[in-house]
């Protein structure tokens, strides 16, 4: 059995259900280091913003899946993930917490809690619904 750990806006509907270990990317250096490591495809990428530029190289090289802590399908990253057909859940919130992102009200504690909970965890993304996407804790090897 696997359980839903987070939910967010689904950037686009797809039957793809990528699985990978969540990797939080905080700076452009983190992005470049991930590319150099050769392990890009092993990871579901977790980022704070919903803009495009920060993730540009990994989008170009074929990211497996993306989780953002702000933004919407109308954001640039939402548009690009659709064009690249890279599953992407946006403005995710933890299912066992009431804390939700509010535009214009950045709360570091909200972001920190999501990073602490997801970074390094093996997850599976469910992106079939037309509006809500779900993050499942995946069983080892799933």
């Amino acid at each position, binding site marked *: 059995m696997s359980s839903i750990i987070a939910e967010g806006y689904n950037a686009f509907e797809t039957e793809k259900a990528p699985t990978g270990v969540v990797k939080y990317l905080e700076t452009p250096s983190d992005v470049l280091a991930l590319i150099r490591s050769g392990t890009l495809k092993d990871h579901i990428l977790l980022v704070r913003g919903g*803009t495009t530029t920060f993730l*540009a*190289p990994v989008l*170009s090289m074929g990211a497996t899946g993306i989780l953002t802590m702000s933004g919407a399908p109308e*954001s640039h990253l939402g548009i690009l993930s659709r*064009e690249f057909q890279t599953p992407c859940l946006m403005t995710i919130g933890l299912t066992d917490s009431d804390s939700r*992102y509010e535009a*214009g*009200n950045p709360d570091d504690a909200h972001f920190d809690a999501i990073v602490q909970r997801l970074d390094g965890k093996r997850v599976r993304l469910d992106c079939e619904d037309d509006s809500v996407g779900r993050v499942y804790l995946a069983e080892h090897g799933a």
Partner: protein
Amino acid sequence: MTTASKTATYKLRYESDDDGLRFQDLTYEGNFVGLEPVPDGILGDKMMRRRAKTGVLDRVSKDEVLREQFTLDELNDLNNYLAWNIWDVLVMRATEGVSGMIPRQEYEILAFMHEFYRWPEILRMTTDEAGPQGVMDIGATARREIGTKVNCVHDWCIGAAGFGMGRCGLLALEAIQPDDYVEESNDILKFMQRVLWGKRQDGYILNSQDRYRCRVHEQEILDQLLGELEDFEPDEPKHDAFTRFNAAATLLAFLDHFDSRLGLGDTGPYLLPDGRMLIVRDLFTNEEEFHWSDVCDHEDVPHCYTAAVVIDAGAMGLAEIRVNDISTSFTRPKNYVPYITGGAVFVREKWNTPMGEVRPVALDELGAELEKLQQATLKLYGKLARMPRRELITNGHWVYFIDMILPHLRLAGTYEKACRDYDLWEIDQRVSNYYYEITKRKFAHEVVPTKIFSGKGYLPFSEKADLRRSKYRWL
């Protein structure tokens, strides 16, 4: 591929009594406090136009567009409608938060305010040089060209960014009062109206007034594009090659324009005789005025790729498509990519390459173009990652301040004059000083988004406002 309903209902959206779908749950109030909240989409357009005091938001005649200026009521109608339209296209995008790389909220508000101060003089000079009809003719060129930045987003930005959000930011900063710069507001909005009317030529100026359609290309141009069309099935290699190319070019176009929509220009939807629909997508991958585009030069990336994107709306079960006023297409269902069943790609090497020299690229040859795009993207990313914050804000500021009116000045032949005699590539001292203000009291990150995206910051001109008024005192 999704297994959602496959009954296409999008044509219902074009029936006069249809109110369209809702793409979001939020509603808009703006300056209409106490009245029924306004939703997004076709219904929102209807409600906002019903609340107008004048006919400026209906189909207007060429003579009205050529008239020297708007009345005060017309200015207020345009202000209210643009405020809703900005909310309609940007409120969800505005949730995207920090970039992690480019301080976009900072450069955006600085550029908007700069535009409101500086553009009126330059647009007035351009109108003097080209004449009112000449400004309309600039808009009309978009009907006969692909790979032109005289497009929805640039034309819309003249009024929505330079007037709407620029004035909104300055009011929020308390740098101006609602009845300041009335004459300058008229100059900006008249320029916008003339360009957009000349482009559409159906009496409207915005796509939202026409159920989110922007079918401006003349049939001769469409026939040329369709003459190069290659059809494919979704599981064929050509589908993969075309969609990967489209995504990579879109990515570089955003990046070269500092994570902004100025790199992308959709028109359509054009309904094809076989029942499919065409979107014409310009992707501006190398703007020569930006010094950071040198990496695009090094990879031999052209000024613009144009992708003719053909979608099987029936197979998709399309319920609504919006080509919005910032040149971006959104659909319901959202994922149209698996239903792309035809495509063609064209290259315009420079902004002024004649249409007769625009060349097609066969889909089998897109691999080489994709490689160039990926290399330029990687190099540009490395370049941006090394830029200090101040430089990123300055460069983003240039992208907005210059590029939003660059295509119009180029065609009017006034760009060099604006640079030489009007110091276009300078930052006004007032705006330079605002650089230090916008990070205080959360102005850029909280105050501005709240004012711009709630619609509460677009204060109307009062009944006492004078159409001749500029700003005469700073007290």
